[in-house]
């Protein structure tokens, strides 16, 4: 897997500032290796516990993070994840944005279909993550990169 072509010119996406009005803190983490995914999962879990997400919601968020982080590495050639703490009035939430400067997703509708994969996986990463979160948005441009933004609010 080549990680050489990315990060030189990061993918510019509006998704990075999409939740700015509600953001109270941001942590950026690199996504290059398998170990980075484990490290990200650990941080997401800590932040989810800090805003007292239920155990089921914690598990859903960490699992979605794991799927999307793997996509960033496997299909995007590596990139980074931003872990944002959100506050909207009395409501707290966590926002995760995965950004890579990879080849982009040519057919988004197809990529979001259960069971569709180009990488020999199960084809559940994108579609499954969408089901596990409250908000889900993708910004992708062929040849430029992909960004995926997910949000989970405390109920």
């Amino acid at each position: 897997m080549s990680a050489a072509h990315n990060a030189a010119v990061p993918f510019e996406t509006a998704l990075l500032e999409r939740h700015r009005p509600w953001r109270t803190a941001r942590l950026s983490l690199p996504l290059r290796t398998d170990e980075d995914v484990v490290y990200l999962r650990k941080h997401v879990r800590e932040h989810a516990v800090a805003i007292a997400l239920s155990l089921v919601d914690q598990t859903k968020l960490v699992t979605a993070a794991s799927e999307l982080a793997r996509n960033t590495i496997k299909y995007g050639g590596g990139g980074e994840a931003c872990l944002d703490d959100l506050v909207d009035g009395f409501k707290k939430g966590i926002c995760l944005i995965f950004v890579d400067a990879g080849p982009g997703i040519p057919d988004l509708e197809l990529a979001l279909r259960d069971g569709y994969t180009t990488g020999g996986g199960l084809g559940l990463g994108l579609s499954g993550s969408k089901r596990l979160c409250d908000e889900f948005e993708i910004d992708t441009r062929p040849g430029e990169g992909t960004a995926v933004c997910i949000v989970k609010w405390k109920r």
Partner: protein
Amino acid sequence: MERIPILRMGDLLLVTIQVDMHDRLAMTLQDDLTQRIVSDSAKGVLIDISALDLVDSFIGRMISNTAAMARVLDAQTVVVGMQPAVAITLVELGLTLHGVKTALNVEKGMALLGKNHF
């Protein structure tokens, strides 16, 4: 290199996953288990995931594949101890671990493998 230990009890292999596995570690475990089924002539494999607070599609696929490989090598696999939050997430994600036998705990898993006479 990091590895998850595989214990042998009679003709059973017992694995307790206690670390947050990265993908390579999961693949190593799958390979090791398959090797050990043959080298130890194991008839059953018991995988305890009670300490795992996450099973994503990669780990789920590793479990399904291990069970399928064990089956063609004449061994049964039982996955025990899945946490309720993990089960909820797994199904919502779209994974049902088709073809994998499960039990609530190690004791019930042993019984399922016909090893209730210890």
